[in-house]
């Protein structure tokens, strides 16, 4: 496979040579070529992690840093496949006994973010919402798994019946009456999510609970984010604190890596995961499907649910097992693997190796105007344009790359109306988002996909970002469009 990659590597010299020939061919003066040479910002994922494909498959590309193309392809197959009931002896079997989705891709249509949905149904392709069920104090209800499950394999019962989950969208009028200073108006919407009490298994019903949804984001580039040194994250947090950002969050969140060592959290909206190897994707392959693998020989399950099923007479009757046997099976830490470590390793080769789409049109004058405004409005305070990766022990060619994710990987409070449990939310990377409509067919933003456009996303930025938002509000219409053009380009 490596021979296929070889001819796709171009040096600056080759680039310049090509552009020179190209320019000569069309009759332009060679000196104009100088202005056309790619700047480093085009290499969003660095020289070894950027994909130069501008189309529907932009999020699916293998970074040139990946040498094992076969493993990458096998990992991709696990992401795209659909898990089914069974004990692991047939392909993709092992789903359940209780689960969230049967396919990774269902939540990441086109390898991108989940879609804004009007209902919660695990069978709806593109529904990347995960339920968040929390109490009055903002703590997750322990009756449910952190990512609550709504599906089960027979004869087990789902903790929550999806028919009792309701997502409704409501108009929001901001402090400016949804109007720019120049008179142009806009609309904003936000979700309210409820779960009927009767839709929850009786044994699991909390005394009080609130519900929110959080959507998936794209997967590309997460391996490069993993390669950012922890020291750089700490330094960035310190710098932000000194500048008045990350208010009320003087301590960085820490989370265990794959070896149990505590590291700075950099993944998920709450920064609750620290490394890719123990990150959202590595975990999702197990906890979304409950497919058992050698390093996770137990179910993603709660004690309350296991007790409820063990006490269920129908489950006992159908399985022909005693109460204790059912409970012990569900809570076992010695289950037979339904997926091999080789499968998991391949999955991680794919996950880590997904390249970032190159930036586009950065030389367009409108985009350049937008860029200038983006920087001058202070957006880059949190949407930190670039990082330098450190030494990557997993993928050597990801080391020492200048990457352009436009995130500080830190949490900020945007004072968003009805934010769910994410009042403090990690800055979402902006790289590649401009291709979402081509790749996924949809183009929504923010943690619950409430923003239907880039413009709405900016207008939801209050709190720490209010000053930047206000500067945006006072731009002319053309300037606002230029900012969006820039966002679409990166």
């Amino acid at each position, binding site marked *: *496979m490596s021979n296929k990659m070889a001819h796709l590597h171009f040096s600056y010299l080759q680039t310049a040579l090509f*552009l020179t020939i190209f320019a000569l061919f069309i009759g*332009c003066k060679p000196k104009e070529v100088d202005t056309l040479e790619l700047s480093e910002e085009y290499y969003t994922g660095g020289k070894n992690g950027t994909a130069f*494909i*501008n*189309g529907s498959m932009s999020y699916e590309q293998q970074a040139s840093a990946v040498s094992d193309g076969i493993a990458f392809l096998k990992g991709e197959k696990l992401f795209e496949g659909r898990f*089914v009931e*069974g004990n692991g002896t047939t392909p993709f079997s092992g789903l359940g006994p209780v689960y969230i989705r049967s396919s990774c891709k269902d939540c990441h249509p*086109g390898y991108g973010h989940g879609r804004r949905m009007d209902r919660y149904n695990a069978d709806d392709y593109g529904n990347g919402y995960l339920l968040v069920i929390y109490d009055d104090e903002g703590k997750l209800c322990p009756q449910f798994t952190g990512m609550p499950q709504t599906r089960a394999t*027979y004869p087990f019962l789902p903790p929550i019946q999806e028919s009792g989950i309701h997502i409704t969208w409501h108009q929001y009028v901001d402090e400016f009456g949804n109007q720019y200073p120049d008179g142009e108006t806009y609309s904003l919407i936000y979700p309210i999510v409820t779960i009927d009490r009767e839709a929850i298994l009786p044994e699991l019903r909390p005394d009080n609970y609130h519900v929110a949804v959080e959507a998936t984001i794209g997967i590309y580039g997460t391996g490069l984010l993993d390669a950012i040194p922890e020291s750089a994250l700490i330094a960035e947090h310190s710098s932000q604190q000194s500048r008045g950002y990350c208010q009320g969050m003087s301590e960085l969140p820490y989370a265990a890596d794959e070896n149990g060592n505590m590291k700075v959290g950099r993944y998920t909206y709450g920064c609750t995961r620290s490394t890719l190897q123990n990150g959202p994707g590595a975990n999702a392959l197990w906890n979304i499907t409950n497919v058992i693998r050698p390093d996770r020989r137990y179910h993603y399950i709660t004690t309350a649910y296991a007790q409820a099923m063990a006490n269920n007479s129908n489950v006992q009757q159908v399985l022909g097992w005693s109460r204790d046997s059912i409970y012990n099976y569900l809570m076992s830490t010695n289950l037979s693997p339904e997926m091999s470590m080789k499968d998991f390793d391949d999955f991680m080769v794919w996950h880590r190796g997904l390249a970032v789409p190159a930036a586009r049109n950065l030389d367009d004058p409108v985009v350049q105007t937008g860029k200038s405004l983006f920087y001058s409005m202070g957006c880059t305070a949190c949407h930190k344009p670039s990082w330098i990766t450190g030494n990557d022990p997993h993928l050597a060619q990801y080391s020492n790359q200048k990457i352009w994710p436009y995130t500080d990987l830190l949490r900020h409070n945007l004072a968003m109306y009805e934010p769910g449990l994410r009042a403090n939310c990690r800055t979402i990377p902006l790289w590649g988002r401009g291709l979402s409509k081509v790749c996924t067919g949809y183009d929504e933003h923010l943690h619950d996909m409430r923003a239907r456009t880039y413009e709405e996303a900016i207008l939801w930025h209050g709190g720490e970002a209010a000053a930047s938002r206000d500067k945006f509000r006072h731009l002319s219409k053309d300037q606002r469009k230029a900012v969006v053009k820039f966002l679409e380009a990166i």
Partner: protein
Amino acid sequence: MKKTNFFLFIMILFGTLSFVGCKKPVEDDDETKWVKIIESYTDNTVIVTYKNMATNAVELMHLCEQMRLNPTDLLITEACKSWKQTRQYWEQSEAFLYGPAEYNSLDPHIDSWPLDLNRLLQVLAQPDILDIDAAYVRTNFGASLVGFHAVEYVLFNNGAPRQSTQLSAAELSYLTALSRVLAEDCILLEGSWSGVEALSADKRTILTQADLTISSNFGKEFKNAGKVGSRYTSAIQAVQEIIEGCKDIADEVGNSKIADPVSSGNVLEVESWYSWNSLQDFINNINSIQNSYYGSTTGIAEHSLSTFVAEKNKDLDIEIKNNIQNAKDKIRDIGEPFRNHLDNHVGADAAIKACDNLFNSLQKIYSVLD
């Protein structure tokens, strides 16, 4: 396997600027050619393929409805033929799974794999299975219980049509509903590319009966690449989409669909468990590349990638054509049914290499897109 393509990216990036700045007739001619290539590809490859698929799916649906009333061996045989015909066009569409197949969730609904057999058996044991209809299936069952492979399960066994006496009333009921959902999805796919107005009256009726609507015309948007309203910002971006779709399936056929089961020796990794149709599926995947490259399902269109490449580099066009044919030949040489020839490593290796060669020659198209 996904590959980066820096060369074309530069083309897209600066090609447009150059056209604007220099206005050279030669470049304008190429741009015009790209637009015509996209038009022919959309009308004569994509829409024709989906139209044929939907037409066959409707026929399959009617056969299944007849079977429910009177399940004869003859009808089952006819339904199996119709399934294979419909499947043929689906496999011939795998070089263009972008757009509505992705955006409208139709790809997973039509062709998810594997079938969730445990759960399907539970569905067939439901007390109300005889009253089940397409609307119920669409609302209540996910992708692993519908589509080609669910229909295949009821119709085929060990690579042959099942006997009428083997089909239970529950299976016939579910099949009737399944085949209608499949037909509806195929019509949705055709209409999403062609526009609803281009659908035949009977297809529109089927959608109306199911309360399904089509609100977009992706084919028009694709043909309008570079114009206001299209998510494709330039004609060459759309051309790139065609090429990448071809490369992607060439790679997948060789290095995944063939390589994985041959490597493991596990017949269950071969997609078609019941019809044993996989080798034909692979050949039709290559036909999907051919039809995309030719800009037509019936030969080389006047405005096609093939004619464009031939004009720029005749040898490359010949190389691609030869590699398309060679890939089909080498796949066929593995032996049918594929699941019974997983030990033919020599044949499989030759087919994988042929797909790799096709991939590499398709990549070379970028060298003439100047």
